[in-house]
């Protein structure tokens, strides 16, 4: 009995550093931000004024906020569709036991290792209106009328940032799908071959169902990343031109650290947190149920 208590105590000691530091530097700031969202504060003065829901009222009446919310919705649709679809396509192409498949995997995955800031830098240059690669190519192949200032144009800037993001993030879906494909029991595919199934039939009946666990992970991560996307937008457009590429994360930063309106910034952060929770809680619940299985 004494031994058992001693063990418990040792294990508790191991948990002290992670749990305490996480509580102080993560949990407490979250609660404090929620609290701040009900106050008016410039970030410097010792005075904070309680304003109730005023910050939220101001926020929901704010044009930039509406644009940011719409853009996050667009990012969500984009992230759930394009990187996973392209990642799956590339994984299917690679997974054919061909010579050089490692090399292709390396090439497709490489952008994912790069900092989003450098991604923004190179895409700013690719999008450069006069000498940038994209407009130059369009002109060369006789499509000069399609050339435009991609990130300088209000109606397409967000999609231009997404294209840069697609190049950057597809590698993540690719790697997850590739590992999923390699975990499909070969007997299943052989059995389908013996039954004379063509590729599309195999794809629908065997591959897609077998890839369900990978798909759940890919989609959950993509959804969260779509809500908290910040780096690439901040570095490429700073939310501009105007508010055209603004999302909640960049807006929060702008309100808080450029305009020192900490209450309004916190309100944006709270909205972001609530949206993330709505999307991710079912997934965490689903995962933690699976954990019991791993443990036992």
């Amino acid at each position: 009995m004494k031994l058992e208590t001693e063990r418990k105590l040792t294990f508790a000691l191991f948990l002290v550093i992670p749990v305490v530091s996480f509580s102080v530097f993560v949990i407490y700031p979250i609660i404090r931000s929620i609290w701040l969202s009900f106050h008016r504060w410039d970030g410097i003065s010792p005075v904070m004024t309680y304003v109730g829901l005023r910050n939220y009222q101001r926020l929901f009446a704010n044009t930039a906020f509406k644009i940011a919310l719409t853009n996050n919705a667009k990012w969500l649709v984009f992230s759930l569709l394009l990187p996973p679809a392209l990642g799956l396509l590339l994984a299917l192409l690679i997974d054919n036991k061909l010579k050089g498949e490692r090399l292709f995997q390396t090439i497709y995955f490489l952008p994912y290792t790069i900092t989003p800031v450098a991604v923004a830098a190179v895409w700013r240059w690719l999008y450069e209106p006069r000498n940038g690669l994209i407009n130059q190519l369009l002109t060369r192949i006789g499509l000069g009328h399609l050339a435009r200032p991609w990130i300088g144009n209000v109606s397409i800037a967000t999609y231009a940032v997404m294209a840069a993001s697609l190049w950057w993030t597809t590698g993540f879906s690719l790697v997850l799908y590739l590992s999923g494909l390699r975990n499909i029991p070969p007997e299943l595919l052989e059995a389908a071959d013996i039954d004379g199934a063509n590729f599309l039939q195999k794809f629908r009946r065997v591959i897609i169902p077998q890839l369900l666990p990978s798909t759940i992970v890919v989609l959950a991560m993509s959804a969260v990343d779509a809500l908290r996307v910040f780096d690439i937008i901040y570095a490429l457009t700073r939310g501009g031109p105007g508010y055209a590429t603004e999302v909640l994360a960049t807006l929060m930063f702008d309100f808080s650290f450029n305009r020192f309106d900490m209450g309004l910034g916190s309100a944006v952060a709270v909205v972001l947190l609530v949206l993330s929770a709505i999307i991710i809680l079912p997934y965490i619940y689903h995962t933690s149920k699976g954990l019991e299985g791993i443990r036992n």
Partner: protein
Amino acid sequence: MTRAKRKYIFIYAALIFFAAVFLVPIGVMISTSMKSPPELVNVLALPKGFYRENHRAAFEIIGRGMLNSLLITLPAVFISSFVGALGAYPLSQFRFKGDQLVYMFLLAGLFVPFQIVLIPLFQIMRELRLYDSIPGLWLVHTVYGIPICTFYLRNFFATIPKSLLEASLIDGCSIAGYFFRILLPLSKPGFAALIILQARAIWNDLLFGLTLTRSATTRPVTVELSAFVGMTDVQYGHLMAASLWSILPTTIIFLVFQKHFIRGLLGGSIKS
């Protein structure tokens, strides 16, 4: 031509096409970084030589940031992995009241949008006099690395047979002794993957660097580079040279340790 052969030609063609598209931005980055200003008007042409001025200018802009990033990333990677191991050990070996709760709590941390902590974190760091300091960033990257490190290592530790713990305890090893003398050395492959994963995450961080540093002697390279990208009049030769240098460390690590990197990524993405 047989069907199988046609299929392979088609697949290769598609693979090569996508590879070319994926390599274009990197290729443009490298070639532009070698070009002199007059050459920039023709992005499709190869560089005539190696225009050193770009790299000299790049170093002026991001050289110090590179050093700072190195000073931030190296210790932070090891501290965060170790702290993650501290949490992962009990969670992987032992059932106790509320273990699920602790675990869910940490897991939720994987998905928190960091915007929700920025303002109070900024205040806390100021009060602790860690604002605008490199140790401050070690602390922040360690704490915000706890979810992924704990999660990843818990899964890794769970693959080590529990009978080993029991046998060691019977042999008179203590709980802490097992952790330091047996579990940690046995987990080297796990740590290798995690350290690479964390190195990428910390080197590439922009948000914490942007909010928690101010002076040139602490700002990480991502912050310096993002200020440069944001300028209205940019010399693209300089910008591409700076970008190239900023991605060099992570790219080299990836190319050398690709297998570990991908294993880390797979272990760190939550599969049920």
